[in-house]
Structure formats: C-alpha cells, structure tokens
C-alpha cells in the first residue's frame, strides 16, 4: 500500500513537472515582449530596460529562467499580479474559498442527484427508465454555459427565485447565490453519473451473489446497500475523479456567467489582461488539485476493495 502511494506520488510529480514546463514555455514563447507590459506607461530607456531585464532575470538563458521560476513556485512564491499589484498568493487565497465552495456544492449535487437518478433508472425498467435516459442524455449534452444561461432565464429572471449575480454574504445568502451556478455546473455531470450508476447497478443486480443474497432472504434495501452499491461505487468514483479536471475548468464559465469572483473568473480576467503570473499560478493549481484527486481515488479504491489488499497479503 505504502509502495503504491509512493509510486503514484512520483508519477504525479513527474506529470506536474512536465506541466510546469508546458506552462512556463507557453508563456515564454508567446508573441510579444514581457517588457512591453511593464513599460506600458512609458519611461522606456535602454538603461531602465536593462535594469528590468536583470530584475526579472530576462538576461539569463532560458533554462536558468525556468529554474528561478520553478524554485519560486515550489517555495510558494507565485510573484505579483501585474494587473492588481497584489501578491498572487494573496489573490488566490481570497478567491479560492469561493471556488472551493462552488466545486463542493456542485459535487454534492452531482453525487446525490446523479446516483438517485441512476438507482431509480436501474430499479424501475420500462417507462421510468426510458424517460430518465432521455433526460440524462440531454443533460450530458448541455455544456455549463448553456445550462447557466437557461437557468438564469428561467429561475432568476423569469421566476425571480434566485439572484443572477455575485456570491452573497453570510452562509444562507451564499447558498442562495451559489445554487444556480452549482446546478449549472452539475447538469452535464449529473447526466453522466446517472448513466454510469445505472449501468453498474444493473451489472451488479444481474450477478450471482445478489441472487444468492436474495435466496438467503436478505432484505431488498440491504441487498442494494451491501451487495450492489458497495461494488458499484468504485467505477462511479473513478468517473467523478477523472471528470474533476473539466469540472474545475468549468468554473471559469459558470463564475463568468454568474458574475462570481472566484479563481475561474479571475483566470478569465487575467487572460484578457495578459496577467501571466496569475495565469501560471492558477493553471498549475488546477492541474495539481486534479492530479491529487486522481491519486486519492486510487488509494480509496484500494481501501474499499478488500480483494486488492487480500491478494497482496497472499503474495507475501
């Protein structure tokens, strides 16, 4: 188990290292001189230019520049935002909690609604299953920005139940403000999870151990909980984890549509202003969070599935 975690973490570091090269290289080879941004207000003299080049290490070879950049990143120094003048770490902290809340809220919706839909679909074949399949099929084809605009139209502007803008103050108000954004982000994934749940529950229900449990007289609820869901959950978790990256990416769209100031909308604004320190930091952060989630799911898998540890024990 320990060896497994170590190996996965090494793979994670290797991936993150490659991603950091990509992100650094992309910004570096972008057309335009970074000094243009600094001297936007004028005052561009050869001396000042040389001083700035030295200050930002632009006079050094690219490998050295990458090394400086990487060691700063590793020690948690993401530099200063060009547009805001604040430290990037401060910006990320002040915007991060909103995005974290949004992602968690979305995950709760995805897991509960998606699994309930999937279970209902699997347990009630026929008209219920068919209509749910159509609903979830359309849901998977609805990208967050489309869902966001439709939800705003119906529930915010039409019915007036929810606000259209901002993140709110205080817990209840925040929940109220976050509900539509979270639903908008969840729609496509609810469809996906419902379908995966349906398939794996149906697979499990058809397996002999369920039949045996039923013959033993185990109650239907217990069968579902102990013999079906326990086996059906790992593939569902994997899907959630593998889609987490695109879910976090989707916060850019949803936060922009609802005027929420989180990391996603900060990233979008920073791209429009070419505020590279912020772009790099948020990019790396998203990739790191996604990769950690993938590792955690692998570990959870190993813990939830006794067969994996058992086979290891036998090998010893």
């Amino acid at each position, binding site marked *: 188990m320990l060896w497994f975690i170590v190996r996965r973490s090494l793979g994670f570091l290797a*991936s993150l290292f490659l991603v950091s090269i990509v992100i650094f290289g992309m910004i570096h080879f972008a057309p335009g001189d970074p000094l243009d941004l600094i001297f936007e207000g004028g005052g561009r003299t050869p001396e000042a230019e040389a001083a700035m080049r030295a200050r930002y290490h632009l006079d050094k070879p690219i490998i050295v520049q990458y090394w400086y950049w990487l060691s700063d990143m590793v020690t948690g120094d993401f530099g200063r935002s060009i547009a805001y003048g604040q430290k990037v770490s401060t910006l990320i902290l002040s915007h991060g909690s909103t995005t974290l809340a949004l992602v968690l809220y979305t995950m709760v919706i995805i897991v509960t609604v998606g699994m309930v839909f999937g279970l209902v679909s699997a347990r009630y074949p026929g008209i219920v299953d068919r209509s749910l399949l159509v609903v979830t099929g359309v849901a998977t084809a609805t990208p967050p920005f*489309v869902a966001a*605009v439709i939800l705003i139209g119906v529930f915010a502007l039409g019915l007036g139940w929810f606000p*259209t803008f901002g993140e709110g103050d205080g817990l209840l108000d925040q929940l109220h403000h976050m509900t539509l954004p979270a639903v908008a982000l969840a729609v496509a994934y609810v469809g996906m999870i419902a*379908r995966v749940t349906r398939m794996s529950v149906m697979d499990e229900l058809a397996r002999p151990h369920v039949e045996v449990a039923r013959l033993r007289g185990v109650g239907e609820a217990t069968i579902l909980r102990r013999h079906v869901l326990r086996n059906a959950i790992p593939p569902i978790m*994997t899907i959630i984890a593998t889609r987490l990256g695109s879910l976090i*990416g989707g916060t850019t769209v949803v936060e*922009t549509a609802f005027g929420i100031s989180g990391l996603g909308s900060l990233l979008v604004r920073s*791209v429009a202003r070419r505020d590279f320190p912020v772009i790099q930091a948020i990019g790396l952060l998203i990739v790191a969070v996604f990769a950690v989630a993938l590792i955690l799911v692998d570990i959870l898998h190993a813990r939830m599935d006794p067969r994996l540890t058992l086979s290891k024990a036998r090998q010893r």
Partner: protein
Amino acid sequence: MTASPATPTLPRLARPLGGARFLGKHTAMLVGGGIVACVILLAVFGPLLYSQDPNHMDFGNSLSGPSPQHPLGTDGNGRDLLARLLHGGRLSLVGPLAAITIATVVGIGLGLLAAWYGGLLDSLLQRLLDTIFAIPGILLAILFAASFGRGLTAPVAAMAIAFTPFIAQLVRSATLQEKTKPYLDAYRVLGFSELWIAARRLLPNIAPVVLAQATINLGYAVMVLGSLSFLGFGVPPPDPDWGRMVAEGQEAMQRGAYLPSLLPSLAMIVTVVGFALLGEGFADRLARRERG
C-alpha cells in the same frame, strides 16, 4: 482496479450516453446520423440559401420578434438571428472538425507506435499522454488563448492536443488486442514490412472503433469551443458562433428577450446529442458484431 488515470476507465467515461441501446438496434445511430446530417447541411448550405448578412447591424430594429424580414427576429444589435445561427453553425463546427481530425491522425500514429514497439517508447508515450490528460481541455485552451491571442488557432491547437490521448489510448489497446491474433505474424512470415502490415492490415481492422470515438469526441469539442467563445476567447467578433451568441444573448435576456440566447443554446444541445448518438450507436453496433 488500481488503474492509472487514463487506462481501463477511459472507454466508459469517453461514452457519455453509454446505455442508449434502449433505442433499439439501429435507432440511436439513425437518429444521430439524421441530426448530424441536418446540422451539417444547414451549416454548409444554409448561409448560401439565406443570404442575409449576419453582421449587419440595425439598431432601430434591435430585439424585434419574428417577422417576415427576420424569421427568427433580431439580436441586441439588430442583427438577423437566423443568419447568425446559420453562419454560427459553420464556425461552431469547423474548429472542432479541424481539431478532431488532427487529434485522430496524431493519436493513431502515437497509439500504433506505443503498441507496436512497446518497451521504453511505450512508457515514455504513456507518461506524455497521462500528462496531457492531467490538463483539463478547457484550461489548456484558455492558456493557449493567453499566449496566442484571440482567434480559432489557439482553441483548435489546444483541443487537438487535449483530445489526442483519447484516440491514442484507444488505438494502443486495440492494437495490443489485434497483435495477439495470428494473422499479423502470418504477414510477417510472408515478408511484408512492418509499416505495410500496420497500415494496410491492422489499421482497417481498428478504424471503425476509432471513427466511433472520433465522432463522440467531436461532440465534446463543439462544447469546448462553445465554452471558449462564451468566455470571449474563441471566434473573434463580430463573426457569430453559438457560444458567442449565447453570451450576447445573456445581455438581451436581461431586457426580456429570450430567443437570442435560447436558439444557439438549443442548436448546441441538439448538435452534441446528434454526435453522441451517432458515435455511440456506431460503437454499440461494432460491439455487437464483435460479440457475434
């Protein structure tokens, strides 16, 4: 069970509508094919048959409802919605089509290389693909937009990279499966070159599965490009694409006009459903044939 992120779970997660079999043997494929054919025909010939200028502004006539001059009404700048919808279809499809074509060709190449030669090359390619897999497509596209600026180039390049692992992994595992069958060795014994065997005998056998996956990916790519345009990083203004139109329609919605955002939204959903049904119907048919 301790799968690396991209391996055995991939085929399932790459099929959002898995289980569309309820539609009957060929219905999914027929419905999907019908939708896709209609969308493509409208995008190609629509702008030719309906010759209104999609970018002509008429501020005196903004947000007007459907009328003989404007069958679907106008948007916030008084531009004809039907014309924008049709032209938007072109721009919403061309980018994804280019990206998926590149991703499929490159993915086939990488997958074949990895499976054919194995060993160190395989491990290196796996690591590369896993790394790409670790960057969400939309994030990669936003980063590309940051460095290359507005326009279709950045999103197409980003999507081509982001979708390559899906095809490469599929080709790799399909090739590994085919490699266990004796016919490839038979050709080798007969003295045919490795390249000839791979290109002329192996590839045709795995092509249908790859085509099915590419069709499904196309639907995803339409969504990604739409999201980017919604954020303002896709097709540059004033040219329309569906994502942009939804964003512009959001403003119109505040003024009580729902059509400008609703129409492109529906167009997008219908298109994505069409590609998904077509791709998955095709994949299901292949799976059934495989099972016999």
